[in-house]
């Protein structure tokens, strides 16, 4: 976060900005359902933080190494929920477990996400000299409430968050009075078939949103494949991860003086010129060699000893680098250069072992050099921090993508935010911690960026509904990076990002503070969605707590009042309705500008919207038809309403399906 907020235009330097206009979110409470918190972290110091907001009804629950004074005016609440986890893991021995049976964070993940959304200023922080700057959250004075529901399972070396514990945490957070609920969690894909409410987070979130709590969820890390986005309920804000305009170039100097810049978090000690090897079968040997990263351990003993190794991989697993590095180290190797698909964000080595990532083109250049000389050598120098142009913004390869496999007509993800190489606070117990800080990547890190922004917006607009905040960030989002350059979507070939990569675009907090008008939604809109999704009347009645009868014929999912239009199966003409609510000047007049998707006709009536003291909300109809004669993929456009001060922009995504419910290999 030493770069995040300056990059997003939310730096304290700007005289008039959202941060200062809202006292940095001082009266807003953000709840985190995660792995707990490290209370001694400087991010949760309460210097300069005023009295606890009066609407807070939560508590500081004591537990293992967690005492009453661990809470303060910043970290105002801490609870933990383990009954579901224990019931499902009867062999779990809490005395032997390194995890704390309290709200204290062993893993560091909960501490990291909380510091991103609401951490206080911590000056001059870096990760072993990298990414240095002032660490802070999006809403530095917001209050933090911790609900620990994720536990380290040592025998499996994994983390598990029982859904029954998560629901209990949500139930308590609703009682305690949080304003924003931030969930950097993702269920195992495949998603629950077809229904949102069988997704546990969606169930609890429905009731939280009905009570005015804004629920922000990570979109998942199963990208770049399509239809992998998680947490797809229309009432939550689902976040995709983008990169910052920051990278960590690591000079690789070859013996022929060619210099290549790879990526790593290598902070030395520098090796100096060292022998370089690409394990491959020399003519004179009947032994088998391999230069494939994940198979380096199959090389004859001593092949890599005392050398830097070049390898190639097609795997996209985050662990590709660490596994290859362990093979090299085991054979006495001194360093690793890993050539892989561009953009696959791989967890770099953390133990000062030089392992540098490059792409195939650069890998091939190095391979040609190795083959051109008898004694190839290389010098890997420590990584540096490069901020600003020419570093571009991309949607992170791992970021899960739409369309929404639960309901393709509901655009997911909603919004993009930086989630790659984010420096935040962590637990000193974490093995990648450096002085209590860590650099992490994932939609886990992107979600709290949005939680922080939404906390500031909540301070500015305390009476807005959760849907209003989603609308405001979607309709004002950047479609380019903050400097006007295209945002690419990392994948097996880069493409310009589209709504299935990052929803409305990259969050633009300053513009979201004054969006012009909003596509608002309330319980009746969610009921319309549930009816269109085929829920029966009795379930919906129990869900909302009052008798509800769906209209007959059931409503169209295209009429769900979202700040987006997504038609996955256009054949004949579709007409849909949107209702918008003025939040700008009382007397406002908006004109429509349509940027239709290729080959699609979009007609909007009326073409002018007039708001005044008597008319706060108006509706308009959109008629969509296709000129395509074949089943196409999705084409993208926009629907913009402008009053010359605001450009209220929603993404339009349309796929023609002349032949419906049909799949072919084309």
């Amino acid at each position: 976060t030493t770069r995040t907020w300056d990059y997003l235009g939310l730096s304290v330097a700007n005289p008039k900005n959202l941060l200062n206009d809202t006292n940095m979110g001082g009266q807003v409470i953000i709840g985190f359902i995660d792995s707990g918190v490290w209370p001694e972290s400087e991010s949760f110091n309460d210097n300069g933080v005023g009295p606890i907001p009066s609407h807070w009804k939560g508590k500081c629950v004591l537990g293992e190494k967690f005492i009453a004074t661990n809470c303060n005016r910043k970290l105002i609440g801490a609870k933990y929920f383990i009954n579901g986890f224990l019931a499902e893991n009867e062999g779990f021995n809490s005395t032997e477990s390194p995890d704390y049976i309290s709200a204290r964070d062993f893993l560091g993940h909960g501490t990291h996400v909380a510091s991103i959304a609401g951490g206080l200023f911590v000056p001059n922080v870096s990760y072993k000299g990298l990414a240095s700057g002032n660490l802070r959250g999006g809403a530095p004075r917001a209050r933090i409430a911790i609900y620990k529901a994720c536990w380290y399972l040592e025998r499996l070396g994994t983390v598990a968050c029982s859904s029954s514990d998560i629901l209990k945490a949500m139930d308590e957070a609703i009682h305690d009075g949080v304003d924003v609920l931030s969930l950097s969690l993702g269920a195992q894909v495949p998603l629950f078939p077809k229904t949102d409410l069988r997704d546990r987070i969606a169930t609890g979130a429905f009731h939280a949103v009905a009570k005015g709590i804004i629920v922000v969820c990570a979109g998942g890390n199963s990208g770049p494949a399509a239809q992998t986005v998680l947490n797809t309920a229309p009432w939550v804000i689902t976040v995709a991860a983008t990169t910052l305009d920051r990278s960590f170039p690591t000079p690789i100097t070859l013996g022929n003086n060619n210099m290549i810049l790879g990526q790593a978090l290598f902070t030395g000690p520098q090796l100096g010129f060292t022998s370089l090897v690409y394990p491959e079968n020399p003519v004179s040997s009947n032994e088998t060699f391999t230069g494939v990263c994940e198979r380096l351990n199959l090389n004859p003993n001593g092949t890599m000893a005392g050398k830097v190794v070049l390898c190639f991989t097609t795997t996209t697993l985050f662990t590709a680098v660490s596994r290859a590095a362990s093979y090299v180290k085991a054979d006495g190797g001194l360093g690793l250069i890993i050539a892989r698909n561009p953009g696959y964000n791989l967890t770099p080595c953390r133990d000062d072992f030089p392992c540098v990532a490059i792409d195939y083109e650069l890998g091939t250049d190095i391979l040609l050099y190795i083959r051109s000389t008898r004694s190839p050598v290389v010098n890997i120098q420590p990584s540096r921090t490069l901020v600003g142009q020419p570093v571009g913004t991309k949607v992170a390869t791992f970021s899960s993508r739409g369309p929404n496999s639960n309901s393709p007509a509901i655009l997911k993800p909603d919004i993009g935010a930086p989630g790659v190489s984010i420096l935040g606070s962590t637990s000193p117990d974490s093995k990648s911690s450096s002085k209590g800080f860590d650099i992490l990547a994932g939609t886990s890190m992107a979600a709290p960026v949005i939680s922080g922004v939404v906390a500031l917006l909540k301070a500015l607009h305390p009476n807005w509904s959760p849907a209003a905040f989603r609308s405001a960030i979607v309709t004002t989002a950047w479609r380019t990076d903050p400097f006007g350059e295209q945002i690419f979507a990392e994948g097996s070939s880069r493409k310009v990002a589209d709504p299935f990569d990052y929803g409305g675009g990259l969050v633009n907090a300053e513009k979201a503070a004054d969006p012009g008008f909003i596509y608002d939604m309330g319980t009746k809109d969610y009921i319309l969605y549930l009816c269109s999704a085929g829920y029966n009347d009795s379930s919906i009645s129990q869900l909302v707590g009052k008798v509800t009868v769906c209209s007959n014929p059931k409503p169209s999912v295209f009429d769900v009042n979202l700040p987006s239009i997504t038609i996955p199966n256009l054949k004949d003409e579709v007409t849909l309705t949107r209702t918008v609510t003025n939040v700008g000047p009382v007397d406002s007049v908006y004109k429509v500008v349509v940027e239709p998707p290729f080959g699609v006709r979009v007609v909007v009536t009326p073409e002018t919207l007039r708001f005044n003291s008597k008319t706060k909300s108006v509706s308009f109809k959109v008629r969509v038809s296709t000129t395509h004669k074949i089943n196409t993929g999705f084409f993208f456009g926009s629907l913009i309403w402008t009053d010359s001060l605001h450009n209220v922009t929603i993404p339009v995504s349309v796929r023609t399906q002349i032949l419906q419910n049909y799949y072919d290999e084309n």
Partner: protein
Amino acid sequence: DAKSKVHIVYLGEKQHDDPDFVTESHHQILSSVLGSKEDAHDSMVHSYRHGFSGFAAKLTESQAKILADSREVVHVIPDSFYELA
């Protein structure tokens, strides 16, 4: 005896403002299926009583089925695990 596992029994919006009353109603629902208050108490993992109504309990498949069929229950789903993203 079929193995019991944690299930989430979801009842929708709360019908009462008093959380203790809501939890008591959960115990009654559960003991009507398990046969006694003691069994219900041993089986209960969580009672959801502030933002919505429901409970988590250790149930066999057949007990879960009985609950899923009862009128006041929206759905019964087995506990599952989320990962950190």
